[in-house]
């Protein structure tokens, strides 16, 4: 079906580098907030991060232990399924490679789980080899709770709902398991460059 031309519609052009803005997205300079429910507030002394599931020995870090892990600064573009993209966002966190270092697993999928019950699923190869981080600073400041603090996932090559806020751990599984938005109409994988927004995209 050829697109319907909207007479007189021009749109906003030249708004950012086209090769960094996926189809159907627009550039924003704000940092919009999207979440399905209230913002959880887990005190840091009750916070921990764990890796569970198909792993020989589950791993667990307290906040202090987690912050003592080797961290990295990354600056990436992020793309939200609600159509905004934000370029050059500066984060600091721990690479998932560091968290999984030395882990022996046959798992092919990772389920991120968060305070508040949110989950999202990914193939394990989408969070390894320098593709994903558990971040706790944004723009050199501790990550604000409304943006997922104390720590959230960062998987910048996929739509941003695949980067869970208020992350508390990763579950390694041999089978895939659609998460919160994935059972509520959103794509199971979410590649913004293929515009995989919804079921069947």
């Amino acid at each position: 079906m050829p697109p319907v031309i909207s007479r007189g519609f021009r749109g906003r052009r030249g708004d950012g580098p086209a090769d960094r803005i996926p189809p159907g997205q627009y550039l924003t300079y704000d940092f919009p907030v999207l979440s399905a429910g209230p913002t959880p507030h887990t005190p840091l002394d009750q916070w921990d991060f764990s890796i569970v599931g198909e792993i020989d020995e589950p791993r667990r870090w307290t906040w202090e232990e987690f912050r003592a892990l080797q961290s990295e600064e990354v600056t990436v573009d992020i793309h939200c399924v609600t159509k905004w993209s934000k370029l050059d966002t500066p984060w600091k966190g721990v690479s998932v490679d560091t968290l999984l270092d030395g882990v022996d697993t046959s798992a092919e999928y990772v389920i991120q789980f968060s305070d508040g019950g949110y989950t999202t699923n990914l193939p394990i190869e989408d969070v390894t080899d320098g593709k994903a981080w558990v971040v706790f600073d944004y723009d050199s400041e501790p990550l604000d709770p409304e943006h997922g603090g104390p720590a959230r996932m960062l998987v910048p090559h996929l739509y941003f709902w695949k980067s869970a806020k208020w992350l508390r751990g990763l579950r390694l599984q041999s089978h895939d398991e659609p998460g919160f938005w994935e059972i509520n109409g959103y794509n199971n994988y979410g590649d913004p460059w293929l515009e995989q927004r919804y079921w069947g995209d």
Partner: protein
Amino acid sequence: MAGTAVLGRLNWQIADVVELITETPRVKTIAFDVPGWAGHRAGQHVDVRLTAEDGYQAQRSYSIANAVDGTRVALTIQRLEDGEVSPYLTDELRPGDKIELRGPIGGYFVWEPSDGGPLMLVAGGSGIVPLMAMIRTRATAGDNTETRLLYSARSQDDLIYRDELEHKSGNGLTVAYTLTDSQPPGWTGYARRVDPKMLAEVAPGPAEQPRFFTCGPTPFVGAVAEALVRLGNEARAIKTERFGPTGG
């Protein structure tokens, strides 16, 4: 929803503009006829796509405002001054024009009469739209679920759907307003931002296990959700939908 995934692709559909209704100085409802529309649930949204003559495209998401009504889909859209899409939709579209949309989208921020209540709806500004779809769905179904709406706007002129809300009140629906910036003479509603005290007065108590839906600008929704948790409600009973001021 879980386990009932229909994995068919949501294709772009042609939507014919049939009617434009001025709701407030900044808000219009655009009613479309979408041939083949298979229905929707209250709270869902659609993606709208505009294409310029040279092929440039822009997409935005808008909440569906109406209850299921055949192939009719109504969107209530606030004109954002520096928006890319909303000024075109509200100022340029005329009956007979066509645009593209796809949907319905979203399986979480939805309510159906069979979900029951009591229902507590908290709207900030044009965040009323998906909540109005719930109120209309309830009315269309002849459903008497206890429903309370707390609707915050800047001024009386900014209230969308006011006459219809008055008309639909009763049969278990009560509506409370708060006007945050200016109030007309003789105003008897609230006259401040939504706060925990106001929510405690208007909402059913936690013991009644209300289902909460709140939609509006990010700071509004954040404040409402936090207040409801502090009043003793279960976080999982509070469903939020936020929109920022960007893009539009």
